């Protein structure tokens, strides 16, 4: 990275998932010299490359009839952005000043001025939020099935959630575990039909319906879960060696509180069908402003829109 002090970038992109990197490709091809604040390593989905970095096979991204591994897809996105001149800072944005133009985006060691800012910070996976869950993180409780499935070979584990992410994790983990109990608060899944069919047909996956995890138990490592049936109110203990949680996402917008308009749920508000935020010159794309579709392809699409919106706005205000 070579942003000299005093240098004003045309476009700074915060985030490097499908939205941020697509915006980078389009902005770079428009000769806007985008600088991408890509985030920093993490074992959660909030990391360079975004949520797909923790997934295995992506089967619904068009152009890959045989599927592609999530990290491979994101490496390809980045290589394409790099090819056209996008530059990267491997740090998290720590502050955004949108009160005057040019805007300022700060990280731990950089402070960059930008005529336009594209926010693509995405969303991160929610945890249960239990005290013992945090204590046993890394000792049976995991945020990364692809990293930690291996350690549960020959043991019984649990996955919490009922969407595509939960079923994908359950199916992946069934390769290692002797039994995967899928704990879901309702009686039906909201996952896609194809994922439901696969999970229901998998002999290692059992379903615990109408149930929530109320405590995570174990001394030095996870031993069991206290599970409550939400219909009967009855608590049972389920012995497990591993716990993986896929109960939804929360947008990464803490940085923008008081800076950009957002919903009560934290998702950024954009105007109409475009990517404009309430601050002229700041655009938002991907999961950070989309709680409806939340797909790699929709994120990439809105990243493209943000770059085009930014390019047009820069041309008009120059």
């Amino acid at each position, binding site marked *: 990275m070579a942003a000299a002090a005093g240098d004003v970038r045309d476009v700074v992109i915060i985030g490097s998932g499908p939205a941020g990197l697509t915006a980078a490709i389009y902005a770079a091809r428009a000769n806007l010299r985008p600088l991408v604040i890509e985030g920093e*390593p993490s*074992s959660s989905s909030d990391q360079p490359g975004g949520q797909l970095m923790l997934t295995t096979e992506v089967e619904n991204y068009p152009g890959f009839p045989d599927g592609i591994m999530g990290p491979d897809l994101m490496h390809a996105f980045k290589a394409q952005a790099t090819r056209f001149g996008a530059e990267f800072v491997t*740090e998290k944005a720590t502050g955004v000043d949108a009160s005057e133009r040019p805007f300022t985006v700060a990280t731990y060691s950089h402070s960059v001025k930008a005529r336009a800012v594209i926010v693509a910070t995405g969303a991160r996976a929610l945890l249960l939020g239990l005290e013992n869950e945090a204590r046993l*993180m*890394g*000792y049976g409780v995991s945020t990364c099935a692809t990293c930690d499935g291996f350690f549960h070979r020959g043991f019984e584990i649990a996955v919490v959630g009922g969407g595509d992410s939960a079923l994908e994790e359950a199916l992946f983990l069934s390769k290692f575990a002797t039994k995967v109990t899928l704990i879901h608060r309702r009686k039906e899944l909201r996952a896609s039909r194809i994922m439901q069919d696969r999970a229901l047909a998998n002999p290692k996956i059992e379903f615990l319906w109408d149930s929530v995890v109320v405590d995570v138990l174990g001394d030095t490592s996870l031993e069991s879960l206290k599970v409550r049936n939400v219909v009967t109110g009855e608590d049972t203990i389920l012995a497990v060696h591993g716990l993986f949680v896929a109960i939804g996402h929360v947008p990464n917008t803490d940085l923008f509180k008081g800076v950009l308009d957002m919903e009560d749920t934290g998702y950024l508000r954009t105007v109409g069908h475009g990517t404009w935020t309430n601050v002229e010159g700041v655009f938002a794309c991907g999961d950070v402003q989309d709680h409806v579709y939340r797909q790699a392809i929709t994120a990439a699409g809105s990243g493209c829109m943000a770059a085009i919106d930014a390019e047009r706005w820069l041309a008009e205000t120059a």
Partner: protein
Amino acid sequence: MAAGISDLTDATFDEEIKGSAEPVLVDFWAEWCGPCKMITPVLEEIAKEQAGKLRIVKLNVDENLEVSRRFEVMSIPTMILFRDGEAQTRIIGAKGKQQLLQDLHPYLTP
């Protein structure tokens, strides 16, 4: 392989850890772990910058089950810092450079 980061195995682990004058950070990793790959360049930078104060080595959990089990590694990346052969602290999960340096700082050779 990475400059300054050598590989330990079940066979070499004890000798290398006990025989080191500097504190040793062992990075437990595996090929299939994305966040492990992501911190490799970060660890390489730290190894270079902290040369003489800290030694960084890695251990492939897939190939070295004995040591991984002995230290009850259940999640990777896990990094354990040893001084005089004794485990001092454990860092679980990938982190950025500044956070890692902050976590390691109290254990580095002054």
